[in-house]
């Protein structure tokens, strides 16, 4: 039984069994904490509306492009050259094939 689960990695082994047990423990703890919470929340009432600085928002959806906005903005110096690299121009793509071919030839023949 043990052997059908364990995989050996050279240093040691990995078994999902222990991890799953630990995750279950954490889950039970979380449920316990959650069950201690307040019970005044009611579905389908005003309580469901998101609270944005006391205002009732019209369309309170946060779209995916807004997630990590700051992170992506900080990475912009790396990301915009990368996006430009995927230029959509088929000639560029063919040229990159030549580069890979050239590297392989340099490595193997020269």
């Amino acid at each position: 039984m043990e052997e059908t689960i364990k995989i050996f990695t050279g240093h040691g082994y990995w078994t999902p069994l222990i991890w799953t047990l630990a995750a279950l423990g954490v889950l039970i703890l979380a449920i316990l904490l959650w069950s201690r919470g307040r019970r005044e929340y009611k579905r389908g009432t005003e309580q469901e509306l998101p609270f944005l600085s006391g205002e009732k928002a019209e369309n309170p959806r946060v779209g995916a492009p807004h997630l990590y906005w700051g992170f992506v903005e900080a990475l912009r110096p790396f990301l915009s050259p990368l996006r430009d690299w995927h230029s959509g121009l088929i000639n560029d793509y063919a040229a990159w094939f030549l580069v890979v071919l050239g590297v392989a030839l340099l490595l193997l023949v020269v």
Partner: protein
Amino acid sequence: MSVHAPILAIAVPLLGGFAVPLLARLHRKVRDLWVLLVVLFVGVCVGYVAAHVFTQGIWVYVLGAKNPQETLAPGGFPIRIMLTVDAMSAFMGLIAGFIALVAFPFALKYIPEEEGKTLSLTLGILLLAGILGMAYTGDLFNFFVFLEVTSIAACGIIGFRTWTSRAPEAAFKSMLLFSVSGLFFLLGVALLYGEYGALNLAYVSAQIRGSVVDRLSLALFLAGLLMKAAAAPVHFWAPDAYGEAPAAKALLLVVNTQVSLYGLWRVLFTLYGGLSDAGVGWLVVSLGLLTMVVAALMALVQTDLGRLVAYGAVSQIGYMMLGVGVGLVALSGRPDYGFVAMQGGVFHMLNDALTVGLLFLCVGAVEWAKGTRDLRALGGLGHGLPEVALAFLLASLALAGIPPLNGFASKILIYEGSFRLSPILTAIAVLCSILLLAVFARAFQGAFLGPRGEVEGKIPWVFLLSIGLLVVGILVLGLVPGFFVEEIVTPAAKALWQGRALYLAAVLGG
């Protein structure tokens, strides 16, 4: 009958694919039944071949001989085309068979009748035949032919939606690059043929001594197959192709890139065996790292769900290249850690097929229910499509390598193996996994979370069946990895790692 299982697995879909339009003239139900029968037959054949190969060793099937085991013509020369199925080929066949069993029922429902369903099914079955041909063949020119079969069928699928302007564009670019890669592969084959006068992989492998011509053709093979396998910096076609192909068939395109990668391993480990030195290994490792970093960063800024998943799929190619590349670097000394990394790389092929396949199916279901894949317009689909949302979440976590799912089981092998070569490799790989988790958290939040979004129509039960099959696969592979690593991954990795002598002996005797 069972003696001919390897060739039947290729021939039946090849003929069955062309029979689809004819049967569609009879009745649509007949056509659908036929497609399912062909795929089921392929699944059975592939399973039988794998069971045979894993228990009794390499299976050589000679075409055109009186006795399919008669490898050498009189004179001791392998003149006929043959299929040589070792554990690695059987492993790829298993992946292709399983994904086909999942993808075709989905496709039967997913592609509307008026959008040319018949032809799309034909192309899908031909692609399957090409993939299995590439996996099983033991002949270099034959490999090229199947490579082109997959290229043509794949581009037919990519550009299938000709009424949009993006799909033909993706198809044209992919076809151009596939043609270049195929032609350079053929040039490599021609050089080897000119030198040794043979096309049989095992025979040529036994002759190779490392002359300039040998190394030249290795460089051509490398460039051609890296392009087809979507390694950076020649991965540009892949996000376009995966993103624009109908989602039900994008799974098969992923398997197609994997089988091209398998071709590369076959060339490097079996054909060139001892000759592929550490330099080539480092090239594969560094291109693998580049692939995962570039694709993960590009996935971060995508606003189209299909294209985002496509970049995620490309980044996984990098992990396979890292795993097997570490093995290649260490091939001459054959230390333990090299084999661990190779196990990880090979195992990751199976895990990637399942997780990326599941993600594409979820994208297809979202597109079916909502009519768009634009993350700016999607949102709140978790209320209407809870099953799809859960499956997407599971697949995202598996792809990002979160324990205890299957992606982690293979990634830990890759991490541990590459750590012994250089900790920097592991650091970059772990970093990319974290980045991918961020990417897919964003995709999940954008598509499924938030206030209730409108959903048109119900998801057909066939979709849920296909999705469920992959979910079960991911959970089983994640929770009982030991069994699969022991039974199918280790033999497959061993076939590359030290199986060259056996491969040659199976064909050439002695």
